[in-house]
């Protein structure tokens, strides 16, 4: 009888325990979310980025006029109720062009950070394993880094020709060394951990250790670096388009609107202010978000 009671008690306690566990897990998640929310700046960054993404996705709904529509009679008109941000030198609506430009900028930034993130990680992690290839890859990276990134991107664009695809390719090439270096250095740290040695000791192949065990452990610094690549490639894309080396003429992009505004800077300020503001705010937002993610993923900085 006594033992039966004990057993009942035990089982009851166990179910209680599991409910406590669940509570603790929930609390843990809440703490992490709170830690992120407490950092006001990173929340601002997140809000900005989310708004930018929404603008990019909903561009056709938000824009008032087709960005390619010309209204030559109303060229270089200041902001009004019809043209919120005014019109450019051939009468296109600046507001709609800026909104559609968000699409181009975010698409370029996202693709570049994704492509250079994946390729940079592969190169960086493989370099940590193979000493000869490490030297070759890292010297190439040093070479690429020694040329100013905008200049290098302009050179690549001159070779490849103007198109969004080529902008992405050249910016990814420029940014791969940044990611590769971060991935390589954190792979070196992870490689010395006991669990990697233990994987050797149970007979795992080097490729398995490299890609399944080292790679995921290097992810967090790489993700942080990717957000910065995202931000910097938005700037570089704008710079390229401003110089006329970026997206082809006619495609609305913040940089190309600035390019048109350059020649009318004294009498049409709206051509410069609005796209410039959008570029600055979204880059600021991405950088704040990147800082927030870094603090969240790396407990040492707290």
């Amino acid at each position: 009888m006594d033992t039966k009671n004990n057993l009942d008690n035990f089982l009851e306690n166990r179910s209680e325990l599991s409910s406590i566990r669940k509570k603790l897990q929930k609390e843990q998640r809440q703490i992490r979310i709170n830690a992120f929310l407490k950092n006001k700046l990173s929340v601002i960054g997140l809000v900005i980025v989310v708004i930018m993404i929404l603008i990019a996705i909903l561009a056709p709904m938000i824009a008032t006029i087709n960005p390619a529509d010309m209204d030559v009679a109303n060229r270089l008109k200041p902001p009004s109720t019809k043209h919120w941000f005014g019109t450019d030198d051939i009468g296109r609506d600046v507001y709609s062009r800026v909104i559609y430009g968000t699409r181009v900028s975010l698409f370029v930034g996202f693709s570049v950070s994704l492509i250079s993130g994946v390729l940079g990680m592969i190169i960086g992690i493989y370099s940590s394993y193979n000493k000869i290839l490490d030297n070759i890859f890292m010297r190439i990276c040093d070479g690429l880094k020694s040329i100013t990134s905008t200049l290098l991107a302009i050179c690549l664009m001159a070779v490849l020709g103007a198109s969004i695809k080529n902008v992405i390719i050249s910016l990814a090439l420029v940014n791969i060394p940044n990611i590769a270096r971060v991935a390589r250095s954190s792979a070196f740290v992870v490689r010395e951990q006991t669990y990697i040695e233990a994987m050797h000791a149970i007979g795992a192949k080097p490729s398995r250790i490299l890609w399944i065990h080292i790679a995921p452990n290097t992810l967090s610094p790489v993700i942080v670096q990717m957000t910065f690549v995202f931000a910097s490639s938005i700037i570089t894309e704008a710079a390229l388009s401003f110089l006329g080396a970026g997206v082809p003429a006619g495609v609305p992009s913040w940089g190309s609107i600035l390019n048109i505004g350059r020649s009318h800077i004294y009498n049409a300020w709206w051509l410069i202010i609005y796209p410039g503001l959008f570029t600055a705010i979204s880059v600021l937002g991405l950088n704040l978000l990147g800082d927030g993610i870094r603090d969240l993923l790396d407990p040492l900085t707290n």
Partner: protein
Amino acid sequence: MSEKIIELQNLSTSFRTERGLLKAIDGVSFDVHKGEILGVVGESGCGKSVTSQTILRLYDEKYTAVYEGKVLLEGEDILQIPYKKMQDIRGRRISMVFQDALSSLNPVFTVGYQIREAIRIHQKVSKKQANKMAIEMLSLVGIPAPERRVKQYPHELSGGMRQRVMIAISLACKPRLLIADEPTTALDVTIQAQIMDLIVQLNQQLDMGVILITHDLGVVAETCSRVVVMYLGQIVEEANVEDIFDNPKHPYTLGLIQSIPRLEGDRNKELYTIKGTVPLLSQIPTGCRFAKRCPYAKERCNTQMPDLIPVSETQKVRCFRYLEGGGIRYA
């Protein structure tokens, strides 16, 4: 005598350094039989861990380590086989448990994933089957509610639990030999006892050989049947566990035993210590390596290296005192 699982013959490991080749272990020979626990004891830096890592060839052979001698695994010299073939031996025929239980598991995968992985590297089984085997392994090493544990991450387990999981991983493929490299250093005393009991129990249950590397003589007395005492990369004494404690021959062994704090006797007496420190590998003395710290050292000890000589059927010792006259009992 039961069959030998592993036999080390005159094994030496040197490391390439800026100061040239340094021999970390020098002429180590011992063997482990089926169902036996062999203790390897010695101070820090005496080559215990190097020996164990050499058996598994875990050092980078291209740039760092140079091996000499033989490691016979069930008669086959595994220092001679191609490096790639070592992957089939590691984890399947020889397994290792590391000293740092807290960082031996990959933080980004569940415990179950890591045991399944160890199984599926060596055996062709389905995921479901591997999961079943993983749960079995966890209950074998005495983890309660293993069905729940397989889904947890290492940070959700305590240190003792993690070391149990490590043992489960290393035993997943039923190896012939388990090398436990100070398996309890990072754990508190009660958990230490549990883990040692577990290793002894599994040793009998699975009938494998165990090399237990430790600097805790208490653990050795509890668990091992034979003991190898190492000093500066050499074996200085090899004997059955009873002889090590009741009839130690080498002055170093004697010093180690005298350094253990005792419950009985005068508590105010200062604890015995072996004088001096272990010399650096680059400054190994020419004669007997222990001569500088040995209370019995003579002229000869400083110039000549003694051999490991048998003093009885089961006991060998590296000391000149036993060349003439034999069996002097130190008091």
